[in-house]
């Protein structure tokens, strides 16, 4: 009897040990997020809250302690332009493609589109940059480094995200809604656009938001396309600045003022991305709840 009790106690103890160890892994896993937030807040907070930070051009390197840190205006502007172009293309291509994949699911092409979107989502983002760069070197070298190619490279990253999330959102719309509309004699295209898409809209917008935020943080595909710049937007066929590129270029700068600006840009970028993510998660969960309640 005693032996069995001991064995049981040992098993329980081991189980508790595992629980404690797995709890510790949570701390290890979350530590980088906390550290990144803390470091960017302490090292970049001061510059970010200067009035000129979002409007001024980035500083030249200077090693005098009193030199000005100024701002990241062109990078903010450039990032907005790039995600505008990229997001616009991703919307125009991704949402219709997802409608096809979801609403004409029985056809082979529909399945091929979902599969391709999955494949594209797995392609490293730098390959998208190489693809756009090489394409333009071959066919139109005059705009290889421009807002156009930068936007295209970002759209190649965003399209699969938009397709997948839109498709998922369309799947959450109960079939009874489609059938009810069709039974009333409403044509398929009206049913899809006015009823199914509208019902799925929060999910679709969430997907677009996630895709845009992903694009806003990407540096690799912009290295050979948007290529970065220290001045404000000149036109669609000129090089353009972007926040991630600015962080990359200033990260290893020997000048402390440029490093400080990079930390400020980091704090700005990460705050926007985290807020957008939390917001979109909230929207998604609300929509799922509404849908399952309605069905």
């Amino acid at each position, binding site marked *: 009897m005693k032996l069995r009790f001991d064995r049981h106690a040992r098993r329980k103890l081991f*189980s508790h040990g595992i*629980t404690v160890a*797995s*709890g*510790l*892994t*949570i701390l290890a*896993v*979350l530590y*980088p*997020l906390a550290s*990144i937030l803390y*470091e960017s807040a302490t090292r970049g907070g001061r510059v970010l809250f200067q009035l000129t930070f979002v409007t001024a051009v980035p500083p030249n390197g200077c090693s005098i302690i009193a030199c000005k840190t100024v701002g990241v205006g062109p990078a903010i502007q450039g990032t907005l332009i790039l995600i505008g172009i990229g997001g616009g293309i991703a919307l125009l*291509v991704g949402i*219709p*493609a997802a409608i*096809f994949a979801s609403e*004409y699911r029985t056809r082979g*092409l529909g399945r091929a*589109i979902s599969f*391709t979107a*999955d*494949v*594209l*989502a*797995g392609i*490293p*983002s*730098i*390959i998208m940059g*190489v*693809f756009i760069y*090489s*394409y333009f070197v071959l066919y139109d070298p005059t705009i290889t480094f421009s807002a156009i190619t930068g936007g295209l490279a970002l759209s*190649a990253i965003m399209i*699969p995200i938009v397709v997948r999330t839109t498709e998922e959102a369309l799947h959450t719309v109960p*079939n009874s809604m489609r059938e009810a509309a*069709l*039974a009333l*004699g409403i*044509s*398929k*295209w009206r049913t*899809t656009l006015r009823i199914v898409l509208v019902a799925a809209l929060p999910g679709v917008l969430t997907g677009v938001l996630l895709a845009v935020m*992903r694009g*806003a*943080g*990407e540096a*690799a595909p912009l290295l050979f396309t948007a290529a970065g710049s220290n001045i404000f937007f000149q036109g669609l066929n000129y090089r353009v600045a972007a926040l*991630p590129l600015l962080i*990359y270029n200033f990260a*290893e700068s020997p000048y402390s003022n440029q490093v400080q600006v*990079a930390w400020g840009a980091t704090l700005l*970028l*990460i705050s926007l*991305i*985290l807020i957008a*993510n*939390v917001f979109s*998660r909230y929207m998604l969960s609300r929509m799922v709840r509404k849908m399952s309640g309605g069905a």
Partner: protein
Amino acid sequence: MSSPTPSSPSSAPKTGRVARWPDLLFFVLVGIAGVAVIALAFAILGILIHESIPSFRAFGPGFLTSTVWNPNTNQFGVVPFVAGTLITSGIALLIGVPLALGSAIFITTAAPRWMRGPVGTAIELLAAVPSVIYGFWGIYVLEPYMRTTVEPNLKTTLGWTGLFGGTPIGTDVLTASVILAVMIVPTISAVSRETLLAVPTAQREAAQSLGATNWETTRVAMLPYARSGIIGGIILGLGRALGETMAVTMTIGNKDAVPTSLFDQGQTIASLIANELLNNTGPLQYSAILEAGLILLAISLIVNAGARVLVWRVMKVGGQSVE
């Protein structure tokens, strides 16, 4: 259910015809967008293959076996970068998988209910942090810590293994691998959590009713059930690690040679592209870089396809058992 007009054709042919052409137009328009998505995939493959032809002509299969990457002599082999990619991703898995599994197990089996949502969300937020920010953090926070604390300790305790030769300088293969581990943990953790949650409650309760402790329930009833989903998540994480660019480029040291120890500098295929595509010395190097990119594309496609198949299968099994 695919037919938009349920009425038989003889009853109302007129309205049927009126309703049909806008439907057809709509079908064609969304179809064009769908075909564009597929065309994008083929265009990427086509361009990469087209641009790597000169390198393929010059080196043939020797490109895959040569360890020399020398722009001065126009000799290019991809081995250093494939090695760098596989070593960093492999170490990232060694570090990341236990952490990811531990966190997923904790969230699904041990964490109090109020903790599950916020902790799960926080782990997923880690996946949203841009790569360049991980790299920046790596340079200023992780790298000094690795150089002053982790690497000297590894050298004194595990130096006999030969893995930790040379001077610990911080900007090296090991630091890049640690950054990659941090970046892939959220992916693996999220997928593992999903598949563990898909284990039927009856399965858990059966083990518990036989007197199994928490850990025994997890080990006997849950992990085997969720196994292929977890493996799928690990492969998805691997796919992310293989193609990760900015964070690796900023921490690995960028040396075009096979690393001789974990404290040596190296280069992955992705960091090679980031560093040398615009600084190529001539068309042959450009083409060789594109061929390396093609190899990276092939590796990540194979890895991701494998993960998809596994995750899909699990999601299907989970879905059916819930219904």
